[in-house]
């Protein structure tokens, strides 16, 4: 089926409103071959669910095995840097398939269970309170600059066991790693600078913690090196993964979730009536409405057919969580933030086998934020008229 929808996914219009663009694709051509970027675009909830649960058909070893160039385009003189990025990213555990993926995951998964994440509640609550108190004192805030961006690094630096004096540096590295998800032509130098910085900074910490483990995340990975599951390089790039993944997605959720509530004031009023009781709903619904990660890529492990389309081995396939979450076949009134009762949801960060380890952590962190948000921000918010709001730009990745 041919569609009239164009294939340029990185235009400002599509970045500003992905839901209109991918919604049209979902209606007209749900398994769509995008000629510009040589990839399959999957947008229906049932198809995304099916894909994520059939991991043996869709390889995660994308950076390692995708023969095609980076997209959007990069400066030709940065091709060597892109090879560096491929090697760095490709060695992370999320870029490995079974059975190796499982061995790697079992080293780490205990750190991220819902129960383990619950133990972080006091620390996260105090970090959120500190940031909101500072904003309240100022009398106004930029959610992205004053809450969403500093909060995850505070928590992750603690998880990594980073000494206090190094935290500003780690925050700098985190900002550079964010370039993995950006579209600038010249993004490679900043990104690889951040990556090299990570390797240099973390390696001595691993040396220490192989010998003298603590209860931090780097010690967990160092234990994996000692067991022979991870190479040193894998320990380092997985630490980097924690920093980036926790940083970027939390910023996105907090900013876009706040924006969503600003755009749906009736829901905000409902939420304020019972923040503790409705924090879980608020978080889950924001994850659905404007997912922090918009899409995920795989490579087909073999030839296969989907809705009468033939996919070939090594074809790029990108599934759009953002679009699946707005599928009217699954969600009533999908393009509004609403209370939903007990409707089935797609897991908004990933589903299936390779669900992001960090899902309980990010979700619980957002819940903690959202619990404090209404009361702590009462005075700030009363001053925020629409003209004064600095909305975060929606994530375009």
């Amino acid at each position: 089926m041919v569609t009239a929808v164009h294939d340029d996914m990185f235009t400002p219009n599509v970045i500003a409103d992905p839901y209109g663009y991918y919604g049209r694709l979902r209606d007209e051509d749900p398994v769509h071959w995008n000629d510009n970027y040589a990839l399959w675009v999957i947008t229906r909830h049932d198809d995304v669910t099916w894909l994520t649960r059939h991991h043996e058909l869709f390889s995660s070893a994308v950076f390692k095995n995708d023969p095609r160039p980076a997209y959007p385009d990069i400066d030709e003189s940065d091709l060597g840097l892109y090879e560096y990025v491929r090697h760095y990213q490709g060695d992370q555990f999320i870029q490995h398939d079974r059975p190796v993926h499982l061995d790697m995951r079992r080293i780490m998964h205990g750190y991220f269970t819902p129960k383990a994440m619950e133990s972080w509640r006091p620390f996260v609550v105090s970090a959120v309170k500190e940031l909101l108190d500072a904003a309240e004192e100022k009398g106004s805030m930029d959610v992205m600059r004053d809450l969403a961006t500093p909060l995850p690094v505070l928590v992750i630096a603690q998880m990594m066991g980073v000494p206090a004096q190094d935290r500003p540096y780690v925050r700098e590295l985190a900002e550079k790693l964010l370039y993995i998800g950006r579209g600038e032509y010249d993004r490679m130098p900043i990104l690889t600078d951040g990556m090299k910085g990570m390797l240099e900074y973390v390696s001595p910490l691993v040396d220490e913690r192989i010998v003298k483990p603590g209860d931090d995340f780097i010690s967990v990975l160092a234990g994996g090196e000692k067991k022979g599951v991870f190479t040193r390089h894998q320990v380092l790039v997985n630490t980097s993964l924690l920093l980036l993944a926790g940083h970027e997605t939390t910023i996105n959720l907090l900013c876009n979730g706040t924006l969503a509530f600003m755009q749906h004031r009736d829901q905000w009023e409902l939420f304020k009536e019972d923040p503790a009781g409705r924090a879980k709903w608020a978080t889950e619904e924001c994850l659905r409405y404007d997912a922090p990660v918009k899409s995920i890529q795989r490579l087909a492990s073999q030839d296969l057919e989907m809705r009468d389309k033939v996919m070939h081995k090594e074809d790029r396939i990108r599934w759009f969580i953002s679009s699946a979450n707005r599928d009217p076949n699954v969600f009533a009134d999908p393009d509004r933030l609403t209370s939903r009762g007990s409707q089935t949801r797609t897991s908004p960060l990933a589903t299936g086998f390779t669900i992001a380890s960090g899902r309980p952590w990010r979700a619980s962190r957002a819940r903690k934020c959202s619990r404090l948000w209404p009361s702590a921000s009462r005075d700030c918010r009363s001053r925020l008229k629409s003209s004064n709001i600095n909305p975060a730009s929606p994530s375009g990745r």
Partner: protein
Amino acid sequence: MARKLRVRVDHATCVGNAMCEAIAPKVFRLNENRQSEAVDPDGDTVEKILEAAESCPVSAIFVEDAETGEQLFP
């Protein structure tokens, strides 16, 4: 004498992560929808089953004492 357990996976929540199957493969098996099912609650130790339940990132596994009904997890 080992406790007898009732083990249930909530299919409205289960996303097919399959850590449970990896930890206690005699107890948990993915069905044709690739969601986990507790096919044999006696297939492993109580500790292993609780470890599997705890490992579920979406808290879809419920464990109770089959005799007393006492909820053991979550």
